[in-house]
């Protein structure tokens, strides 16, 4: 066990803090504390320019291996990076799906040619990605995807037909990774492929879905004989790769998320002190509980990251359930601290205040990325080895 940072680590901290101080200025100053959860649809063009600035400074893919263009930073340094990033109020990363999910997946499963084709543009902050998993009939039951991939005999290209739904930021993305059925006779986990599909082609139609926030961060995506640029791995490997990608979701980037959570909690505490809510005994206790919950989250994440092998321990199984429930409660706490003022919008017709966005967005935390019920099933079945609930007829 080693819970402190080395001298080199502290030098690294000074370096990133200094870089942020000099770069998060000028046109980027307005992005401070923007683009986080519930605010992801805002300033996307500016944030994409910021992504390129980060890239130019060598601050993208810092945890990727050197040979893939990353910085090869240790876990400790990645932690430090995220701490400083959040402390400076640097904006939500438009490139996080590419950097945090696609990159590590391609490094693990793609061939060198494919890696050379996609990784540089992710690092450069030029290509943005979206996740094409869920379908109308495949939410919690992701293995029920019906989107089909068919190989064209003439030139061996794969063509995709079907519909995805709830695809976050599809309207801003250049690429989508799509889970599709390579074997039309198959059911469940078998016969799936993991495809990379350009969003800029006639066979792809993106239709925004309005959320209860009044904004549209997610979309329906229709594939109509769309060309898949690449299949990663073999036909039939789709499920394995799709699951591995979700594993990366629990990686270091969650530390950055925690720092944002800390910023949110700090803001709530600030308001509670100024409007008198901090004198209310029930709210005081909930603020204290929120603080404790966030510490738990942080310790658990650090422990999760200290695993050297790729095998994750039981702490990984409980993580999503904990942070999503915690964050959902934080949203409610924000509203209660505001009291009767909580319902008042920033301005008409439907511009939410930051804390309202937080509140509404956190209603979805326990749904996306595996609902809380599914998380508990995973803890019980995979973690505790309990028998599975019977499935119905899958056809």
């Amino acid at each position, binding site marked *: 066990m080693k819970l402190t940072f080395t001298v080199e680590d502290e030098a690294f901290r000074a370096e990133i803090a200094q870089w942020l101080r000099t770069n998060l200025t000028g046109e980027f100053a307005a992005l401070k504390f923007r683009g986080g959860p519930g605010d992801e649809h805002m300033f996307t063009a500016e944030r994409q320019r910021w992504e390129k600035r980060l890239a130019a400074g060598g601050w993208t893919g810092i945890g990727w291996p050197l040979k893939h263009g990353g910085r090869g930073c240790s876990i400790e340094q990645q932690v430090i990076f995220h701490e400083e990033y959040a402390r400076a109020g640097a904006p939500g990363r438009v490139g996080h799906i590419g950097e945090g999910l696609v990159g590590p997946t391609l490094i693990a499963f793609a061939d060198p040619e494919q890696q050379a084709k996609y990784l540089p543009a992710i690092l450069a902050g030029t290509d943005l990605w979206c996740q094409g998993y869920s379908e109308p009939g495949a*939410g919690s039951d992701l293995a029920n995807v019906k989107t089909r991939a068919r190989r064209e005999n003439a030139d061996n290209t794969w063509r995709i037909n079907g519909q995805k739904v709830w695809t976050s930021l599809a309207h801003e993305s250049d690429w989508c990774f799509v889970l599709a059925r390579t074997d039309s006779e198959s059911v469940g986990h078998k016969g799936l492929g993991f495809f990379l599909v350009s969003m800029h082609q006639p066979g792809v139609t993106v239709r925004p879905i309005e959320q*209860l926030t009044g904004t549209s961060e997610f979309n329906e995506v229709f594939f109509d004989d769309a060309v898949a640029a690449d299949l990663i791995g073999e036909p039939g490997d789709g499920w394995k790769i799709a699951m591995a990608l979700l594993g990366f979701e629990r990686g270091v980037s969650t530390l950055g998320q925690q720092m944002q959570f800390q910023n949110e909690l700090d803001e709530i505490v600030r308001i509670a002190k100024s409007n008198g809510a901090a004198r209310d005994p029930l709210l005081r206790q909930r603020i204290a509980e929120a603080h404790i919950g966030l510490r738990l989250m942080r310790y658990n994440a650090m422990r999760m990251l200290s695993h050297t092998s790729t095998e994750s321990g039981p702490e990984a199984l409980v993580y999503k359930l904990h942070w999503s429930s915690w964050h959902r409660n934080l949203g409610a706490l924000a509203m*209660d601290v505001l009291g009767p003022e909580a319902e008042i919008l920033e301005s008409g017709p439907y511009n939410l205040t930051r804390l309202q966005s937080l509140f509404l967005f956190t209603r979805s935390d326990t749904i996306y990325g595996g*609902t*809380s019920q599914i998380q508990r099933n995973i803890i019980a079945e995979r973690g505790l080895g309990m028998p599975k609930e019977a499935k119905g007829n*899958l056809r």
Partner: protein
Amino acid sequence: MDFTFTEDQLAFREAISRFLMTEAPPELLRDIWDTEEGRSPELRAKISEQGLTALSVPEAQGGLGMGDITWALLTQELGYYAIPDSLADTAFVATGLLSALPEGTRMREELLSRIAEGSVRIAVGHSVNPLVADVHLADVVLQEHQGEVHALCRDNIGFERNPSIDSSRRLSRISFEPSDATRLVGSEQGRAVWAQTLNRGALAVAGQSLGLAQRMLDLSVDYVTQRKQFGKPIGSFQAVKHKLADVASKIEFAKPVLYHAAHALAHGDAQANLNVSHAKLACCEAAWLAARNGIQVHGAMGYTWEVDLQMFMKRAWALDSAWGDRAFHNSRVAETLLADTAQIGPSFTFGALQND
């Protein structure tokens, strides 16, 4: 002790429920909320024809002379169908306030008759609410000012609109100059009237919240029965069933609390504050849980604008802190119980019910 309602009360509820089901479907409400005023004079007129605005106006002013107890049923219907709150403000809260003023008070009889015939909109301004609902259309605002009751007409007020997270709520911050001309009664009489009005406002919210909870529960039960995952209706998974069973329990436990509070208010019980705060807390808690579990069992669908659930959730969230937020009502309960003069012990806690 008897928690049953009269046949008249139940029949009235049934009639209003059937009427609102056909006349105020969610699609229509959404259309209305998209308009600048956010209200439909036609719908309001139809509701008056049903007798809803006359319900608790005294018979002398052309009303039906029913009261708080019947409203405990009807506010649930208003919540269930997400009827904008201005109706309850006029027909329930303002009517109760005016009726409580001494007979012969200026404007009292005139306003009550007009409420009964459905020709007036009244907003109610109390310092517990930073904003006042439906001022933009109100003919009269009954406003609290240092315990006095003022009746403000359009000429006497300035207001600035403040949109709410629930698009159906039309709130404004108002400014006004109190004067002898606007004062209906002074603070000596006014304080008691306002104390009762605060309770009535809180009870109106409690009833609506309970109706909202029931609606969210019904929508959710429908959804989980239709939606399939893993080859089964998701409602067949225990994790989903239990979420909704918990909501049903909260609703059932909140009902008698609401009814008891309405009874206490109607009879001027000494414990009315305690009962009303309890009702507000219990009903709002049911609505909160219904929203939380309702959206959870809807999955991503529940997070969309298009699915009606959001209309009911947002109303519940907004009403949660209207007429006293949770902290306010919790501390009222605590103050009553911890007061030096408080009676404690089983004969107080349980006996009060039996004496009714």
